[in-house]
């Protein structure tokens, strides 16, 4: 459910939340039926919206985030689609990230994942300073700059690592073999069941 300005509310019929390893913000296409609240929804961009949805407990964190309506699109069957994008990055950066890569943090997180699995992972990047004049990032956001640093060493910034108090850089791919299941998916049949 979305709370709109004026405390109007939109009931949700269907939503989906995609994310990838290189995405910091979350684009949350939100499809809702037209109701009294939707009629008063302005078409201008950047309307603050607070998502207060809570389904099975998984969207509790989203409840406190203020999102912004990026665009409105009226659809057939008397429905409107709200595309929202988070203006907040939700990244708490360790100080040393401003000058380098927190490789030690990555190693710790990966080591925790691999514990008791028999697999090992290595990511030996150290913090390093880029010499003056070697690179500039005038046109980049701070996160773009950090991402570029991570990419240079074969890593990617994980914006909200679940077991870490700060943003960390993790390798795009592990030195295979891949290991360390934190999740187990059991398949009974390979087709729709």
């Amino acid at each position, binding site marked *: 459910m979305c709370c709109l300005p004026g405390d109007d509310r939109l009931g949700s019929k269907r939503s989906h939340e995609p*994310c990838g390893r290189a995405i910091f913000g979350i684009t949350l296409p939100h499809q809702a039926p037209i109701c009294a609240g939707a009629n008063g929804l302005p078409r201008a961009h950047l309307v603050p919206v607070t998502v207060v949805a809570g389904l099975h407990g998984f969207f509790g964190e989203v409840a406190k985030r203020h999102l912004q309506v990026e665009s409105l699109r009226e659809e057939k069957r008397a429905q409107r689609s709200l595309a929202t994008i988070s203006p907040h990055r939700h990244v708490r950066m360790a100080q040393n990230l401003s000058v380098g890569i927190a490789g030690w943090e990555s190693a710790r997180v990966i080591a925790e994942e691999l514990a008791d699995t028999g697999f090992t992972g290595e990511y030996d990047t150290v913090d390093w300073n880029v010499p003056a004049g070697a690179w500039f990032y005038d046109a980049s956001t701070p996160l773009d700059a950090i991402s570029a640093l991570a990419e240079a060493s074969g890593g990617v910034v994980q914006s909200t690592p679940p077991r870490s108090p700060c943003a960390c850089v993790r390798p795009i791919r592990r030195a295979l073999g891949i290991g360390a299941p*934190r999740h187990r*998916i059991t*398949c009974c049949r390979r087709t729709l069941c």
Partner: protein
Amino acid sequence: MLTESLQMRSAPLYDAVVVTGELAGKGVTCKVRRSGEEGRLYAQQVSSPLITVPAAGAERGRNILCDRGEQAAVDLTVPLFAQPLKPGEVGLVLPLDLVEVVGADGTWHGQCESLRIEVSADDQAVVIEQTATLERHYTDAD
């Protein structure tokens, strides 16, 4: 598991790559080779002005050399259950997570590339499903 689909891809079995900084006097050039292999088949050279220390170049090379052999992007759609999980239930899978899949043809491991969560409400029922795209390596892993 509700649905499973895969898209195959393959890459040569690179065992070496040259990673270089772009600027003379500031960047470094590293030849990275997989240990235990001859280092004769080179992946495409990579350059970046930010590679100014050997450690950064080595890790960049390590990641490049991991992207080889027979691979598949496997899309798995499973129900998303809340914590605490009961036996047989699958919790939230996040990008970069390592995932063990127990299938009819054995157990394999993959790394989550992306995730899509679908929530739909019909009448009184709320259905939450997640579709995780896993990168599976056949050549260098299971």
